């Protein structure tokens, strides 16, 4: 059996390991499109804040893949040809597969703003980006961060810790709009502002122009101009569908991402997908969704690999979950935090202490979503309560009284304690 895995991010790596665990004799080839050791994008902010060195970003120890007898190949998979069970690599060679996994992840997207292609403008996505940002983000540098979404907020802290003068521009009305509601977004904002970060929401960048030899002028629609030594663009990511779009012949079904069934199989036989590239069913609605988060990626990688090596496994659906630590304020969100039709909800807010908890229940009395700011511990039980689908019974009323009792509710209703 010959397995190819396109993409050496968390989904690809976990898939390779899972395949090896269950199939000791197969050929497993893992393709890494960057000329770097297998590393974790999640770790880049910590590299930028000098908490770790580059080695600290490595997803696995050196020698790991040799030990597993997984061939790590530093070639990008340019094209997948399902009709022929082949792929085309960046050096033009073709390789055949019996089964393959597309785990090519996501890539940053830029808004259609003129001037984003000049020196001093960077995404923060790859190790190469991180090195370029580190070179420019020095103590006292003027840095403009375009986008206060999830990735923006993750690197926000790293930039502050580097001692730059930071201005954050967000086009929408609040910080991290896809993860936080207005209350939580406002809390995060006041927290950041208290730490000396200038935050501008409802602010769209119109154009970026050079200003002198080294600097940039960031023009906003309102007419404001922010001078910057560095502009970091963090305006979102999208599935990297290049390998399925480049090809000819049978095309794989795509929506916002590469569509898969509950076994992580694409519309072509023997081709599977996992991680940020794919569009999988939402755990609650069953509709296709792209959440681009690590826990979903690794779980999909595992499920895909199990099916690839003949061990039927079904993915229960993708549950969005995010955690952010922004200068010491920890925010998390899970599931359908904005609520579902006919549901019920409770919100407990303590702006003075930057604490907030919002729970959303569905009409069947199950937890379907949550946002928490400054929650002290046992955060994971929110996932447990949501994903187990456990009816809360008398605990729904108790949680409405005291949402902070989620850990008790979990132990009582799911872990068999109460």
């Amino acid at each position, binding site marked *: 059996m010959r397995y190819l895995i396109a993409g050496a991010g968390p989904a690809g790596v976990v898939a390779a390991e899972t395949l090896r665990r269950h199939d000791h004799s197969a050929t497993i080839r893992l393709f890494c499109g960057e000329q770097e050791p297998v590393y974790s994008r999640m770790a880049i902010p910590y590299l930028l804040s000098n908490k770790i060195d580059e080695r600290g970003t490595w997803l696995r120890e050196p020698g790991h893949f040799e030990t597993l007898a997984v061939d790590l190949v530093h070639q990008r998979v340019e094209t997948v040809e399902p009709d022929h069970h082949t792929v085309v690599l960046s050096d033009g060679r073709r390789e055949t597969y019996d089964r393959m996994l597309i785990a090519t992840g996501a890539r940053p997207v830029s808004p259609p703003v003129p001037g984003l292609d000049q020196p001093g403008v960077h995404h923060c996505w790859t190790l190469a980006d991180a090195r370029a940002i580190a070179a420019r983000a020095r103590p006292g540098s003027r840095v403009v961060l375009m986008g206060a979404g999830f990735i923006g907020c993750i690197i926000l802290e790293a930039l502050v810790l580097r001692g730059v003068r930071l201005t954050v521009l967000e086009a929408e009305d609040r910080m991290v709009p896809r993860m936080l509601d207005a209350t939580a977004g406002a809390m995060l904002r006041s927290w950041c502002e208290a730490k000396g970060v200038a935050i501008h929401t409802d602010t769209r960048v119109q154009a970026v122009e050079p200003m002198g030899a080294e600097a940039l002028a960031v023009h906003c629609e309102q007419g404001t101009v922010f001078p910057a030594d560095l502009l970091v663009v963090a305006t979102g990511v999208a599935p990297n569908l290049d390998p399925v779009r480049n090809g000819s012949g049978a095309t794989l079904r795509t929506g916002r991402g590469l569509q898969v069934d509950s076994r992580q199989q694409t519309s072509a036989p023997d081709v599977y997908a996992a991680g940020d590239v794919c569009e999988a069913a939402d755990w609650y609605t069953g509709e296709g969704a792209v959440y681009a988060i690590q826990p979903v990626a690794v779980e999909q990688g595992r499920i895909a690999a199990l099916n690839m090596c003949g061990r039927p496994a079904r993915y229960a659906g993708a549950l969005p979950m995010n955690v952010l630590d922004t200068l010491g304020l920890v925010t998390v969100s899970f599931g359908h935090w904005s609520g579902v039709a006919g549901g019920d909800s409770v919100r*407990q807010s*303590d702006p003075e202490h930057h*604490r907030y*908890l919002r729970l959303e229940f569905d009409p069947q009395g199950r937890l379907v979503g949550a946002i928490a700011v400054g929650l002290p511990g046992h955060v994971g039980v929110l996932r447990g309560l949501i994903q187990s689908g456990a009816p809360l019974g008398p605990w729904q009323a108790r949680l409405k*009284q*005291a*949402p*902070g*009792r989620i850990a*008790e509710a979990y132990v009582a209703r799911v872990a068999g304690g109460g």
Partner: protein
Amino acid sequence: MGWQRRILRVNLTEGTCNPEPLNMDWARQYLGQRGLATKYFVEEVDPTVDPLSPDNKLIFATGPLTGTAASTAGRYSVITKGALTGAIACSNSGGYFGAELKNAGWDMIVFEGRAPEPVYLLIEDEEARLLPAGDLWGRSVWETHERIQHDHQDPMLKIAAIGQAGENGVLFACIVNDLHRAAGRSGVGAVMGSKRLKAVAVRGTQGVSVADPRRFLQVTMEKKRILAENAVTGQGLPTYGTQVLMNVVNEIGALPTRNAREVQFEGAPRISGEAMREPRPTDGKPNLITNQACFGCTIACGRVSRIDKTHYVVRNKPQYWKASGGLEYENAWAMGADTGIDDLEAMTYANFICNEQGMDPISFGATLAAAMELYESGAIGKEETGGIDLRFGNAEALTTLVEQTARGEGFGRDLGLGSRRLCEKYGRPELSMTVKGQEFPAYDPRGIQGMGLTYATSNRGACHLRSYTVASEVLGIPEKTDPLVPDGKPALVKAFQDATAVVDSSGLCLFTTFAWSLDDIQPQIDAACEGDWSLENLLAVGERIWNLERQFNLRAGFTGADDRLPERLVSEPARQGPAKGLTNQLDKMLPEYYALRGWDENGVPTAETLQRLGL
């Protein structure tokens, strides 16, 4: 180490919270908790102060072992001038509150003054602030607990509070923490109420360290084994709680019954620890659900009960159907044998209300018993009782009056005075079973002679927990003495009093002494605390504390004449049982006790004694 070396001073009049370093010179002389807080109190408060005036202070104090892994090391005490007694008060409580306070980084809290409006104190580690309690005032301990946890969205907050009893000035109001653990005696809750302090809520995450961790872990582990292997602490207390005593004490004829008219109660088997475990005929379930431990306790004597839903008293009150703190021996005696009541469910309900509204069930039950005797003797009638037929044995009177007393309604207002003031009011002071204004508990001194001297000399008024000679006279710990003779009891009482003062100052629970002697406790203190904590030094600390408390009381106006038992115990012989025909021989014991203490014939410490103790 052991101590956090920091105290919180809260001026309620001014609304300020200020940290202070702990006085370590005093810590070396008084250890912690009871001893050390009493030292602070004596240094700062005029002994003649009116207990309910703003000039009285209220101290919550932990011990150096509180919050550590030593077994039972979760205790704290409340020290003040008692509202019920006018004497030094020190009420000890378990649960989780004390350890939480210590974990927040505080050895004690000193409350001064009186808040202009009701407040509660919130402590989150080093941060302490007073918050308005206007909407908590008038609420029960249980409601207050729920509200505060809710308002701060922190189910981990540990809360000590007063209920309506403390607000209404019930003189035996207590302070309840963790819903049903109490700093119970002497009216410390009334003092808290007089300060308009509704509650103290604490969250502590800082941790507690000890001086010599390796030795501490080794010795505490070894001593836990002793508790586990001992028949009382390893089996009796976890199985039956303190209620293990009901049948035992009844057998030996030392169960004060119907306001101590008798010494045996025919209904004892129906209100005993054994009865609490029997399935009820109505619903087939026992009253007792489980035992519960306080913080760090490897004994777990606490009772958790559920009242029979079909019982008249809760049939229409589902809020009392859930599990809560069940009957301990003293409570079962006071609201059972002493009132002649044998309805376990009604008594459990009254116990719930005492917890919910913050009342000492010993004083409440004993006061009700005195009122019943007043009623049966004709000193009061239905005009006074509001139509209640206050005969001994009337369970409905108990369940009605427990509510009225907490709320300060009807005849409950009279009961809230405590038995001495009640009996004086109705012209029959001799019917009050009190010493220094405090109701004595569940051991009749005619059948257990040493307890007579214990009650008479207790610095906080009649109390079994100042020198629990029952251990020796009934259970044979550390060795058996004859309960019916006074000989040897003065030395026993003195030794127990001094050792108890050490235990109460350490953070440990006195119940460990069923299995542990001071020899077992000393190495635990020594490993936790820097400094000299030899046995000799600890004994000196215990005796010093006892004399310090005594001096406070003497300055407060007490004299040797107050070291006296109710007339009934020394003049009316026991009517039945092994002690039949006996009275308590206090007169024989007291002079010898004074001499052993190094006090003069009036019960005043001699100059030499004070000098020896460094007082």
